[in-house]
């Protein structure tokens, strides 16, 4: 390596004279002392402290979850009781439910906003945003994110995007209504559907801000994990949570820009007369000038994001579940390396399978078979994860905390939902299953339920660190069982409806002979869905009650090994009052033979655990 730079530059670490991380971050220490007289505005609103930002993401995410849930209840009412007159909703929905009959276009708007909100605002921002922010600095032993300022911006861009999306719900012409996948031409032409007017404009603008927020966040997460790990914390000693957040952030950095491209091109088609996605269109009595574009192009670009997106949603949950399972089974996670390997495998594969959402869009059949091949391979690393989780439970000593219950529920739901992915990934079978309720059932189990369970597991598990108090366990149990039974009751029967060929995004199916036989089942699903939704209020109650009145937490309530539990019960700005602990061992030394306690935190040197050290650990030190 012969660079032509003066030697002095090299001496200070390659090109540029980079500050050594610790000198800089120790300055946070001083801030720590001073933060008492900070203005509340900087402490609670424009905070640059990753823990406060995490809480902001969480609360905003919960707000969105309630909205998303309400929307789903509304359209489930329509699906369950298509003939009923629902005057009593008039005060809420106004002109959209004139005469007690839901407007079909508004139905589509509800579905679209439900999908958008749940995928992006609840799971991507709420799950990934909350826990990446909260756990990365705490678990890698950093005082804060690499750039607290950009981190703050990330939240506020998300907030801005939320506001825009929320306001769009109240537009005169209704919010976007072209499905969460906003396929043009439907999304490009206000003539085609009302929601493609102002509603879609706001959707796109909101999404652009959302993407900016994701990029600001993602770049920060990745950099923090690379540069700010504490002494001794090599990549092969990272908790699986951090690996998951790290890879998730990379997925986001690489895939969201492609959605940005698609969105910008769509904006041009909508507003400036270009033809990227439009061609040969005659609508509303008029032939449009657009020629030569391709709607399929949009789908490719969308799913190049859209598919990694579903893993962006599930991978943080996988990481947290791994952590929760190991902690509460009091066992090391089984196959730590394989767990990392499978996460990496899933991440890489997730970029090369996107067109399995497009088998019947007229895509070139040869490409279809390649995508089928690549898609079905994902079952292998996913299977490795499932088996490793099972092996982690095997001969464990399981404590059923609420978090643990949700983690087990996660695994169950992931299996159920993931397996139907095998049917959908098979191009031949997808001919029949595409866009039916079978797909809806698939992704609600794996995303709407499983990823949500990961989120709940995370909240129950790290609540003590976030708020210094414990959530009520009994309510947690009730919440878990109701939700667990609830989601299975809702989404299992959806498969039956789907196998029969019932299409999704249908306002009503009564016009079709073949589909109307499921009236009873649909009522059942709707009833179960509404009950499952109401069960969530137990959680919300528990959450807010516990913030103020919950039992006070101890420093390490779950006897866990990772670094966040070495901070004070409520860590201040800068996380550790003194020096940041160094790390000596991997995060899963649970029930190690020969050790007195059944867990050895990562910051305990081997010299203090002579009785339990394993031969290879000795070699490591030599």
């Amino acid at each position, binding site marked *: 390596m012969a660079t032509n730079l003066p030697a002095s530059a090299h001496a200070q670490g390659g090109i*540029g004279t*980079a500050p*050594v991380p610790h000198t800089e971050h120790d300055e946070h220490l001083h801030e720590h002392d001073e933060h008492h007289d900070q203005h509340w505005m900087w402490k609670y609103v424009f905070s640059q402290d990753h823990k406060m930002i995490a809480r902001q993401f969480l609360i905003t995410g919960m707000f969105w979850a309630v909205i998303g849930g309400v929307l789903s209840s509304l359209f489930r009412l329509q699906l369950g009781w298509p003939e009923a007159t629902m005057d009593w909703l008039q005060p809420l929905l106004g002109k959209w439910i004139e005469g007690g009959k839901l407007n079909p276009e508004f139905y589509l708007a509800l579905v679209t906003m439900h999908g958008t909100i749940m995928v992006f605002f609840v799971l991507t921002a709420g799950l990934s945003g909350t826990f990446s922010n909260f756990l990365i600095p705490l678990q890698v032993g950093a005082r804060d994110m690499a750039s607290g300022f950009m981190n703050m911006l990330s939240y506020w861009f998300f907030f801005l995007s939320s506001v825009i999306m929320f306001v769009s719900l109240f537009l005169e012409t209704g919010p976007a209504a072209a499905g969460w996948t906003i396929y043009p031409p439907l999304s490009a032409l206000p003539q085609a559907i009302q929601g493609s007017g102002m509603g879609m404009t706001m959707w796109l603008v909101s999404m652009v801000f959302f993407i900016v927020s994701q990029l600001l966040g993602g770049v920060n997460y990745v950099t923090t994990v690379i540069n700010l790990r504490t002494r001794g914390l*090599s990549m092969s000693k990272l908790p699986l949570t951090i690996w998951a957040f790290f890879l998730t952030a990379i997925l986001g950095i690489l895939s969201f820009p492609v959605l940005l491209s698609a969105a910008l091109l769509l904006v041009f088609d909508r507003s400036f007369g270009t033809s990227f996605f439009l061609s040969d269109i005659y609508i509303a009595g008029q032939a449009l000038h657009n*020629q030569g574009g*391709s709607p399929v192009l949009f789908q490719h670009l969308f799913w190049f994001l859209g598919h990694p997106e579903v893993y962006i949603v599930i991978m943080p949950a996988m990481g947290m579940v791994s952590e929760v399972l190991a902690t509460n089974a009091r066992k090391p996670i089984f196959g730590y390396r394989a767990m990392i390997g499978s996460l990496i495998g899933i991440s890489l594969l997730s970029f090369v399978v996107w067109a399995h959402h497009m088998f019947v869009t007229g895509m070139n059949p040869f490409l279809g078979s390649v995508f089928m091949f690549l898609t079905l391979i994902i079952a292998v690393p996913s299977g490795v994860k499932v088996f490793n989780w099972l092996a982690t439970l095997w001969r464990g000593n399981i404590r059923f905390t609420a978090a643990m219950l949700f983690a087990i529920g996660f695994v169950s739901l992931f299996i159920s939902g993931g397996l139907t992915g095998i049917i959908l990934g098979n191009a031949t079978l997808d001919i029949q299953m595409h866009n039916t309720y079978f797909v809806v059932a698939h992704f609600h189990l794996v995303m709407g339920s499983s990823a949500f369970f990961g989120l709940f597991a995370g909240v129950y598990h790290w609540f003590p660190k976030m708020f210094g108090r414990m959530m009520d366990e009994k309510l947690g149990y009730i919440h878990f069982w109701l939700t667990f039974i609830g989601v299975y009751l809702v989404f299992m029967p959806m498969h039956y409806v789907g196998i029969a060929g019932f299409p999704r995004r249908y306002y009503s199916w009564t016009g079709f002979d073949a589909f109307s036989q499921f009236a009873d089942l649909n009522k059942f699903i709707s009833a179960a869905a509404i009950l499952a939704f109401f069960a969530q209020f137990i959680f919300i109650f528990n959450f807010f009650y516990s913030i103020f009145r919950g039992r006070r937490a101890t420093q390490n309530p779950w006897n866990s090994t990772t670094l966040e539990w070495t901070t004070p019960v409520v860590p201040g700005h800068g996380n550790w009052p003194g020096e940041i602990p160094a790390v000596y061992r991997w995060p899963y030394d649970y029930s190690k033979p020969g050790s007195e306690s059944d867990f050895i935190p990562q910051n305990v040197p081997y010299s203090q655990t002579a009785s339990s*050290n394993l031969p290879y650990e000795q070699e490591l030190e030599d």
Partner: protein
Amino acid sequence: MAHSTTLEPTTAATPYTDAPRTGTWDGGNEPFKASYGKLMMWFFLLSDAFTFGAFLTAYGMIRHKHGVFTGTADKFFFSTAHWPIPEKVFNGFPGLHGIDLPLAFVALMTMILIFSSVTMVLAVEAGHRMDKADVQKWLLWTILFGAMFLSSQAWEWSHFIGGDEKGTLMADGTRMFGANLAANQYGPPLFADLFFFITGFHGTHVFSGVCLLVWCFIATTNGTFEKRGHYEMVEKIGLYWHFVDLVWVFVFTFFYLV
């Protein structure tokens, strides 16, 4: 971690020390030998590469969707039925009206951009030597080249929009002069759409780059970086600037050559 599942604890006396390991990737370190700011710039550029990658891929798909002109270049004519041959479209030069100078102007633009990259590296290099005067000088040059590129692009656009006197007879029987986002005289409407969009997006990047450089110049002049002890900011903006140059290399190939 090469675990064996042997579970006997060691009984030998332990030679462990209390110092954490200190390898490149063992934490407390910058494994890439790059500060977090520089890494962030790299990751941002990576994501930006995907944005441009998506645009260029879209270009590739749409272009392959359209017919190609099968005859030899001298028989070429503009038609919505096939994608135009670039050198027939981009053959003007400021001040030399009506003369067929294929790709001459874009050659100039490319040179300008390469020059600006060179002056940018020179600024970075001067930064390493803490040579404030040199940094200022080279930044100014870079800004100048950036501005020149932008004005060239403005001319290129107006030329493209204006079209030539002949125009082309369109499918609906009208005669089209020049180009806009809905139609153009050079062929399929998407040729112009993609041209405007992609060079426009690139131009926007150049513009933001120039703004950053101006800010950087002011900061240098004020001695901000000198006080800080390093010119890393110049370096980070340099990365961005070269990236924009890099994108142009691809735009150049795919819009003007291929």
